[in-house]
């Protein structure tokens, strides 16, 4: 049974073109689903829709976002915010800009617990200390008192991971959580996210443009092009034989250092033309339905 189930979600720029085209996907408890696609494909937009943080210039035009069986889009805004706040969290891309440079680490983890979830300061503080230990940060007391600039990029990302798990969310959206990091640090952070996610049984939506990362972290993936899911597959099946020509081309573009002749091939123009034609056909069908 899925914890998150997105059904035919459509989003557009207000008075403008569609940004998400009837996106459907499911994530069960303890499962990890990768969202892949080139930049601008709509990966972050899906995460923002789930977390209720779509930019004001954008509107939902149809579909459902079922969280534990309840359609978030059918709830009054206040209830929706409460529901999301109590059950969901985000691990953002850039560990530097996501932390406020002028505040110590402690309130940046505990404020949400105290102000939104009604914990006592002492309980929130104890929880923060435990979590910093759980994400393998040495000397948690010192880290709580530190300012972000005193910590390395990898340490900051560990703090954001700790913070995301603080209120035992049922669903976490991780939006390119390692893009700003070195390969060696990336590996440690991915390992940590997987370990935490498995231990806590969290459903995880993992946004990335790197199919290498998907093959290590996810059990399912959705390949997006222009806000449309062109392939939804189990990871093992996808890497054995991608079904859609665009996703196959994306895989062929992914570098593979063990085989210098494979990888890093640009997506052929013919493949782009074909997937664009699919998008155009989708929009035309929608316009016909709208006119009828």
């Amino acid at each position: 049974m899925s914890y998150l189930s997105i059904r035919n979600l459509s989003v557009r720029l207000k008075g403008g073109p569609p940004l998400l085209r009837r996106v459907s996907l499911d994530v069960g408890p303890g499962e990890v689903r990768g969202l892949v696609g080139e930049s601008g494909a709509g990966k972050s937009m899906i995460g923002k829709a789930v977390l209720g943080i779509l930019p004001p210039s954008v509107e939902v035009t149809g579909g459902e976002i079922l969280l534990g069986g309840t359609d978030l889009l059918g709830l009054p805004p206040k209830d929706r915010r409460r529901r999301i706040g109590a059950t969901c969290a985000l691990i953002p891309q850039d560990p530097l800009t996501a932390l406020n440079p002028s505040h110590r680490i402690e309130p940046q983890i505990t404020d949400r617990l105290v102000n939104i979830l009604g914990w006592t300061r002492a309980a929130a503080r104890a929880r923060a200390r435990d979590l910093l230990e759980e994400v393998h940060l040495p000397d948690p007391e010192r880290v709580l008192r530190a300012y972000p600039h005193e910590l390395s990029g990898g340490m900051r990302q560990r703090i954001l991971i700790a913070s995301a798990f603080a209120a035992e969310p049922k669903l976490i959206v991780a939006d390119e959580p390692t893009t700003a990091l070195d390969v060696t640090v990336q590996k440690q952070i991915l390992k940590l996210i997987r370990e935490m996610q498995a231990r806590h049984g969290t459903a995880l939506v993992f946004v990335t443009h790197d199919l290498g990362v998907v093959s290590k972290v996810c059990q399912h993936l959705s390949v997006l092009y222009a806000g449309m899911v062109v392939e939804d597959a189990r990871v093992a099946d996808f890497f054995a034989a991608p079904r859609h020509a665009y996703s196959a081309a994306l895989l062929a573009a992914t570098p593979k250092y063990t085989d210098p002749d494979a990888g890093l091939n640009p997506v052929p123009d013919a493949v782009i033309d074909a997937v664009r034609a699919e998008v155009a056909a989708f929009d035309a069908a929608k316009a016909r339905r709208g006119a009828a």
Partner: protein
Amino acid sequence: MSDLYRIENLRLALADMTAKPLFGPAPRIEILKGLSFGIAKGAVVGIVGGSGSGKSTLGRALVRLLEPSGGSIHFDGTDITHLPEAVLRPLRRRFQMIFQDPMSSLNPRHRVGTLIAEPLRLHRLDAIPDRVARALDHVGLPQNFATRFPHELSGGQRQRVGIARAIALEPDFILADEIVSGLDVSSQAQVLNLLERLVSDLGLTLAFISHDLSVIRRLCQRTLVLHQGRIVEDRPTAELFAAPASAYTRDLLEAIPLPDPSQPWL
């Protein structure tokens, strides 16, 4: 022996502003700790290492945006280590640097044509419109891109403009610093193909800085691995991948997630 660059025991120290006392000068920290290597004419050399290993500092020293504090840099037989700006200026046209984020280094209010022409004017070259047109051709951008603004371009197109700006000067050497790091895999592949073609068509020598060994493997015949301001490995790329000699190189390699669920990794 036709080395375009000859680097001997290169050292470079910078003021550490984070440790500057209230009064008096900031202490200097040594970023490059005695590097020696050569770059042959026509070679494509990869420079790889984790963040903070000194790659960009080395790159900036090679094109003399930074002045070394020790050792020497010879460019095509000339010692450029401490050359004053006035003497350096005519040489500058021959070594060009392309940065990771061309948007932040380019004036967003200038059109692409103006941006490519700017360095040509600085070097007082003639027939600038022709040179701009040829540069756009070389990087595979249509001529009408000259009238576009940077924000109207995709990441891959902006990198092409960055490359056009550098090659328009007809340099001997280009230093590319993480120029494909922010791009989608498909645009990465296109830019790498383009660089490969330009190197052979224009007879360029290229140093390609990246933290990504997979990209280096594809493009470079030889690879320098930098770690904490020192060269820990300098070998033909194929050899380095077949049997990395330093533990640091092995760590870098093993950390790359291959697109293959059966690779044991985490």
